[in-house]
Structures are given as structure tokens and as C-alpha cells.
């Protein structure tokens, strides 16, 4: 169980300019869809963008607060 604010703060620690949207996929706040928009992603492949988000959320994923995570990682111009 984790709140959207806590998820956003974890991500913004690693990606300061990120706009983060968190969706609860199952009503239990541990199966999440996370959309991260940042221009830090501009020169990064999809794999590396997602790796950045996984690294930012490493702690809550390891301790089980996040059980399942879907990631969308885009730049501000939707690229």
C-alpha cells in the first residue's frame, strides 16, 4: 500500500522535473500504473527510461508497498 504523493516524491528525487500521474489499478494501492513525463527522457531509450523509474521506486518495490507496476515514460512533447 502506498500513496500517490509518496510515489511521486520517490520519482522526483531521481527525476526532479517529472510530472507524475499515479493510477490505482486494483483498488488496493499496490498495483499501480505510473505515467512519468520529463525532458530528462529526451535522449533515452524506452528501456533506459523505465530503468530510471524502476531505480527511483526500488525501495517501495523491494519492501512490497508496490506489488505490480506499469510504466509510461514520455517527454513533455509526448515523445
Amino acid at each position, binding site marked *: 500500500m502506498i500513496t500517490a504523493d509518496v510515489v511521486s516524491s520517490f520519482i522526483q528525487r531521481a527525476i526532479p522535473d517529472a510530472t507524475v500521474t499515479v493510477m490505482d489499478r486494483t483498488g488496493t494501492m499496490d498495483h499501480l500504473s505510473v505515467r512519468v513525463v520529463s525532458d530528462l527522457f529526451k535522449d533515452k531509450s*524506452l*528501456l533506459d527510461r*523505465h*530503468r530510471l523509474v524502476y531505480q527511483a521506486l*526500488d525501495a517501495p518495490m523491494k519492501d512490497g508497498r508496490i506489488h505490480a507496476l506499469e510504466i509510461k515514460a514520455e517527454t513533455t512533447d509526448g515523445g
Partner: protein
Amino acid sequence: MAELFEQEIQQEIQAHKILIYGKGTKTAPMCGFTKETMQFFDKYGYPYELIDVLQNPAKREALTKLTNWPTLPKVFINGTFYGDTDVLDPMEKKGELVPLLKAAFEQK
């Protein structure tokens, strides 16, 4: 420890053009994402292999180190790592997936 599985993994990713490391088996997938990944590839009709690493934590750890990717499922196409459907979906939308699959299966 990881080296123990390195060779086994290398053989597997070369042996199967589409390879999914996941939880459970084709007939009894144990996780939504594993099932979702199979359904993703079912659309294309190309054969794929699912290797269950749920029972093998050491191999699962070796895969995580090899790919620098913490979760399952893990997808390899033509021996190259592509993450999971979170990566494959955007690739599909940008039209990058079909040529990749064609190249993998129609290599002379």
C-alpha cells in the same frame, strides 16, 4: 552465482526467437503480466516460448543482473532484451515491432 546461469540463459535466448521469462507455464500462467505478454504476442501468430523462473530464484536473480531490469516478465526477441509490454506497446504504436518480428523470423 550469476555466471552459473549465464550460459544457460545465453543458450535459451538464442534458441527462441521470441522468449518470455515469466511466472508459470503457457497453460497455467501465474501472473497477469505474463499472461498479458503472451496475449500480446498471440496477436502476431509467431511462435514464442515461456520459461518459468518462479521456481528458480537464483536464475531469476541472474536474469535481473544480466538485464538490469528488476521485474518479470522479461522479453527477448532474436536474442535481444526488450523489457516487457510497457516497452513493446509503445514500440508497436510507433510501428517498430512488426519489422523487428519479420526480421527475426524471415532471416534466410
